[in-house]
């Protein structure tokens, strides 16, 4: 997943550099962003347990 996301970042940069339509750049960028948020959610596996009972 991490590898694919960095691949998506590189693809977004290529689209940006080639000056393609902004809709295409925004589509790629938002897909990568949501994939990163999903990856973050996957790695959040517990509550923070920040109560004052330690």
């Amino acid at each position, binding site marked *: 997943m*991490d590898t694919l996301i960095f691949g998506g*970042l*590189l693809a977004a940069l290529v689209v940006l550099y080639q000056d393609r339509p902004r809709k295409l750049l925004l589509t790629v*960028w938002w897909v990568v*962003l949501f994939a990163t948020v999903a990856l*973050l959610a*996957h790695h959040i596996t517990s509550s923070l347990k920040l109560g004052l009972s330690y």
Partner: protein
Amino acid sequence: MATTTPTPAASAETSRPLGKLQFWFACFFAAGWTGVVCGGLGVQFISWDYPCPLCMVQRMFMLLAALGAGWIVRRGMTGTITGRDYMMGWGMALVAVMAGGFASWRQTMLHILPGDKGYGSPVLGLHMYVWAWILFMASVVAVGIVLTFAHLTTDTALPSSPLYRRAGLAVLGFVGLVITVNLVAVFFLEGFHWFLPDDPNRYRFFHDVGITD
């Protein structure tokens, strides 16, 4: 919308002394976040720390923010940056730094209880994810300040000097190089698996193909 996207001809008449500032700030912003990711790579390969999954997520958000500013840089290379270009670029950057700020805050909170030594080695007295949170929040403020002075700093027509194109090429090349290095590094770290382990202790690709134990 028409008032925010004047034509180059119209904007040339209203060129201001500080009108190029947002282009240069976008260059600084994109190169700056890419430089921060370089700091993470430095710790990874010089101190030989294995980045954790949340560290990698923060790098992704940093580079997404850099791409937002990179859009403004790219438009500047053409000589014309419209109002909607500035807004789109800074909007992308803001979304990315807020998401990154949440990720770094979350990681900081995981290690805030007394006795917890944190993940990885501290840099200048603070752990990497704490620095990341500070920089993400500072970026929100910086973009906010830049936007409040948009009436002074957002010329739509930039000079035809090759300086702008060379600067833009250098910034986008730097971003591309660092994304590529991360792509290769994380592939070796992750191997043929969907996710990184919570506490990586080796480059799994080399283990998977039998090069290392």
